[in-house]
């Protein structure tokens, strides 16, 4: 009897499964019906995009979280004071957004923003107080915001963040519903680059108070005032953005829906792009990249990210205390070859510390200042430099007697290949022996701060659009990259550049500082700047591709889908 029951259950399960599989194909055909009909103006009648988000946004609370995925969503659902938009030549410019206009006093320490009339998604008008509250909440100690340090230029921000001063002492206040005044510690040339960061986005005090810690975790636990509102958020699966009809510039927004699918697997992303279930994707894998380049339905954009991959020396080490040895190891790497071989021609060689696409004034810094490392290579032979350095240290001048260790902060297979590659390259170009050590990232971090790393490998991306974002990491007070190196003149130059409003003068300060860092002291070994290959169906228009841009999907539309 029991056996019968078992069999019956099993059989019915099997039937159920087979039956369900059988009726599945009808859903698929519906997608075809979605294809938009064209309107007389030329743009598709149905305006929507299917995009990919490579990971789940940690939170949509602007004050918390620091991941780029939530940044991407926040840029579309909230209205920062300004936006970094891009023109047809893919260069960025600052545009008014939540603020209609702004002005600053003579020395640039007091900024006044005129807030634009706008509405929250629940109909409540947007006020200057909402921006004030957003900034204050980000800086407040109890919020524990990871990005609060970006707001350091604001008067008393550091002291408020450490709990020394009360939040009322922060240099931010609303003069009335439309006027926001921000007072800075000192003139800060890149201050406007902070006005489109998440930590300065507006927040509604009543909504935050209502939801407490869970603010920003679900669609109904946040209010919106950007071009879009969030209609659906299935954690780790998808987010759907709907057009915000309360938005001040709703006329400009063409897209009715933007579906953000969370797909972490690279191949799944590639498969999705090739069958058209997503409209835009990044494809850096060499095989797939070639396949997409050959696909004439796709546009291809190559964009260099504002990041630098680099190796750094522990300058307190017995060997690497010597500057000539450091220089030898810097130019002992053939960056062109690295970019082509280990990075499959995707990334671009790096000879400077400040990454491409970062601007100073209106110009790209890197196009004005060539990377200093190239000159070391032109003027010297790596092996001679090494031998000179070994002599100065009183060590054996036979490079074969020297063994050094490169520590990598990942146990990944790719890093293993990378390590072996570096090993071979140093052996070939310098004749030294290289050991490779692979540890997990947190272990690496700990080892570096204890000075247990001889040469380490890292990558760093600019957090805001100014050379200071990367250059200030190397001052003697910063602990971001543990080299043990410090230089008074360097500190002085960075401090000067931090409070100088004239772009031409700042350029000179940064040029000299970078020269000290990479040419004279050779503390860092920039290797490559990561580049991404963006593929986009040709019917997609006006979606920004620059890595720093924050215009989001506001201007996007499709034509001829």
């Amino acid at each position, binding site marked *: 009897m029991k056996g019968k029951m078992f069999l019956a259950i099993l059989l019915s399960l099997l039937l159920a499964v087979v039956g369900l599989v059988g009726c599945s194909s009808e*859903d*698929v055909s519906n997608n075809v019906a979605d294809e938009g009909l064209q309107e007389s103006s030329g743009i598709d009648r149905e305006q929507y995009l299917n995009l990919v988000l490579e990971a789940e946004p940690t939170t949509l609370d602007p004050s918390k979280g620091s991941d780029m995925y939530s940044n991407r969503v926040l840029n579309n659902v909230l209205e920062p004071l300004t936006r970094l938009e891009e023109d047809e030549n893919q260069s960025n410019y600052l545009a008014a957004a939540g603020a209609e206009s702004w002005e600053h006093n003579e020395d640039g320490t007091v900024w006044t923003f005129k807030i634009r009339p706008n509405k929250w998604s629940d109909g409540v008008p947007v006020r200057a107080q909402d921006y004030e509250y957003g900034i204050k909440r980000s800086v407040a100690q109890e919020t524990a915001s990871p990005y609060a*340090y970006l707001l350091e230029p604001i008067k008393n921000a550091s002291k408020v963040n450490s709990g020394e001063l009360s939040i009322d002492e922060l240099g931010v206040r609303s003069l009335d519903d439309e006027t926001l005044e921000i007072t800075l510690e000192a003139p800060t040339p890149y201050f406007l680059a902070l006005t489109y960061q998440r930590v300065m986005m507006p927040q509604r005090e009543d909504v935050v108070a209502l939801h407490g810690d869970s603010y920003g975790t679900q669609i109904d636990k946040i209010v919106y005032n950007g071009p879009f509102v969030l209609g659906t958020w299935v954690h780790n699966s998808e987010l759907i953005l709907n057009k915000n009809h309360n938005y001040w510039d709703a006329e400009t927004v063409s897209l009715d829906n933007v579906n953000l699918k969370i797909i972490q697997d690279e191949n799944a992303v590639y*498969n999705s792009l090739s*069958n058209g*279930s997503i409209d835009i994707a990044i494809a850096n894998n060499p095989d797939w990249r070639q396949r997409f380049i050959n696909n004439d339905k796709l546009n291809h954009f190559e964009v260099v990210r504002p990041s630098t991959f680099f190796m750094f020396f522990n300058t307190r080490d017995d060997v690497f205390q010597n500057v000539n040895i450091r220089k030898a190891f810097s130019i002992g790497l053939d960056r062109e070859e690295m970019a082509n071989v280990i990075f499959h021609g995707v990334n671009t060689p790096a000879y400077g510390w400040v990454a491409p696409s970062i601007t100073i004034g209106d110009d790209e810094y890197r196009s004005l200042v060539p990377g200093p490392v190239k000159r070391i290579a032109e003027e010297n032979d790596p092996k001679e430099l090494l031998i000179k350095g070994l002599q100065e240290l009183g060590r054996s001048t036979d490079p074969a007697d020297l063994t050094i260790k490169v520590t990598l902060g990942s146990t990944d297979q790719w890093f293993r290949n990378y390590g072996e590659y570096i090993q071979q390259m140093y052996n070939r170009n310098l004749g030294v022996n290289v050991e490779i050590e692979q540890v997990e990232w947190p*272990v690496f971090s700990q080892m570096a701060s204890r000075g247990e790393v001889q040469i380490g490998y890292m990558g*760093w991306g600019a957090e805001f659009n100014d050379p200071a974002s990367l250059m200030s990491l190397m001052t003697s007070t910063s602990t971001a990259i543990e080299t043990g190196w410090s230089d008074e003149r360097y500190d002085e130059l960075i401090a000067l550049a931090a409070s100088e409003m004239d772009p031409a003068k700042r350029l000179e300060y940064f040029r000299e500082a970078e020269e000290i860092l990479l040419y004279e002291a050779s503390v860092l070994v920039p290797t490559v700047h990561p580049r991404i290959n963006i593929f986009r169906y040709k019917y997609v228009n006006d979606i920004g591709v620059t890595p720093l841009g924050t215009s989001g999907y506001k201007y996007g539309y499709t034509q001829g889908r």
Partner: protein
Amino acid sequence: MGRYILKRVGLMLLTLWIIITLTFLLMHSIPGDPLANMARKLPEQIQQNYYQRYGLDKPVVVQYGIFMKNLITKGDLGESLVYPGRSVTETISKNSKVSGRLGIQALAMGVTIGITLGIIAALNRNRWPDFLVMFIAILGVSIPLFIIAALLQYFFTAKLELLPTTGWGKFKHTILPSIAMCFGSIATYARYMRSNVLEIVNQDYILTAKAKGVSEFNIIRKHIFRNAILPALTILGPQIAGIFTGAFVIERIFGIPGLGFYYINSINDRDYTMIIGTTVFFASLFIISQLVVDILYGVVDPRIRVSKNSR
């Protein structure tokens, strides 16, 4: 029976407590913390604020005390350290449902097909159906899951464009992942059933039944199947526990919002509360399923029932 279950439940709680304590101490002893694991190093003050906010500045013993108090008095597993504001309990209950749905579907398919294939193979021993089934079984065990999944995905979504590549919510989203996931179970159960059936067909009572003129079908159904299915139950229990914790690889490839993601990533991210939450969840499920299997055994097999009662 009642006393037996009571004793087992007591032991279960003890085991669970040991697991929680060990996990808690072990995870705090791995280098790094949720902040150190972020790609960049944050300024000192920012780190301090964060530690203070989440109580990570206190000694581990104190943190353990607070955690246990909240768990026992409120059943609260705390707030995720990586996803601010999200309750661990809620995350587990939501995502385990997704994993469970997919897992049950895959397991049902795998077990049914596996058992059927196993019986077919055994009854046709050393003939082509047997070789074919064993070939499939060996493939199923030896080809890594992610390869099967990637192939299925490429073929059905990019080439044929029949099914959605990724996503969750509709039945069509579950087809490919279920197929990919059931390969392993098919292989396991087919091999298991084959050897069990082979053992049973040589038993005397089968010969007796044959001699009495019972039809082939009834012999399989009443005598062979019933006896051969028993050992398969043993492996079913832990597997059922396993389906709720999700299949990390499958979820990743098909973009499914299951628990597997949190189960694996919480460790990499050092999301302490999520690590301990998923561990408690999985450990409880596992222990409970063991108990259920043991009880079921007694129900299904009279011999075990008798021996327990006489104890």
